[in-house]
């Protein structure tokens, strides 16, 4: 998944996960768990993640 994110870009990657959650009920649990784990919780976390990556 990380390689896919690098390949397509963060915006499109997360956009597709949000779309999947909206359209496909069976994937909602996996999608929300992934989003909860990988989206930075606030702006500071996003900045530190951006600096590292």
């Amino acid at each position, binding site marked *: 998944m990380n390689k896919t994110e690098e390949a397509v870009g963060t915006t499109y990657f*997360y956009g597709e996960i*949000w779309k999947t*959650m*909206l359209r496909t009920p069976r994937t*909602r649990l996996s999608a929300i768990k992934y*989003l*909860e784990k990988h*989206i*930075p919780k606030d702006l500071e976390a996003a900045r530190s993640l951006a*600096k590292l990556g």
Partner: protein
Amino acid sequence: MEIDNNLVVLVKDNAKKSAEEMKRLELLNLEDYFYFYYPVKEKLCINSLLAGLSDPSFYVNRGVLDFVISHCPITGNINTLSENVRLVEGALMTLHKKDFAFLKKFFNWTMSHLEEEEGTVQEDDPAIVTLVPAIQCLLHKFMDKS
């Protein structure tokens, strides 16, 4: 820029480039954060969360509230007022399932910022400002249906 054999060559200065990138990253603002992680936020992300809240599965409902508790606190600046009202309305529609874990998470999200010892709550408190319009919307919907 370098001159080599009468040719002008543009050379990337990696040190300068990384310094510029670092500067740009430090300036990452809320708009950029939404652009990367919540694209088309009001139409896509909020509707996805609402779809999760109305999902028949308890685990999905709880998962959505866990996400909202950790990433979109009601006192924070991630969601606008209208987005919070929509989410609260969606959560209120799910309360009829009588899932106590969901109920506990809902109260945690909306009211954990209120201190127990506090006697009165301010009128502009985020809990009141979101709950009241959400309940009003629900009442209007049910009144219109009947």
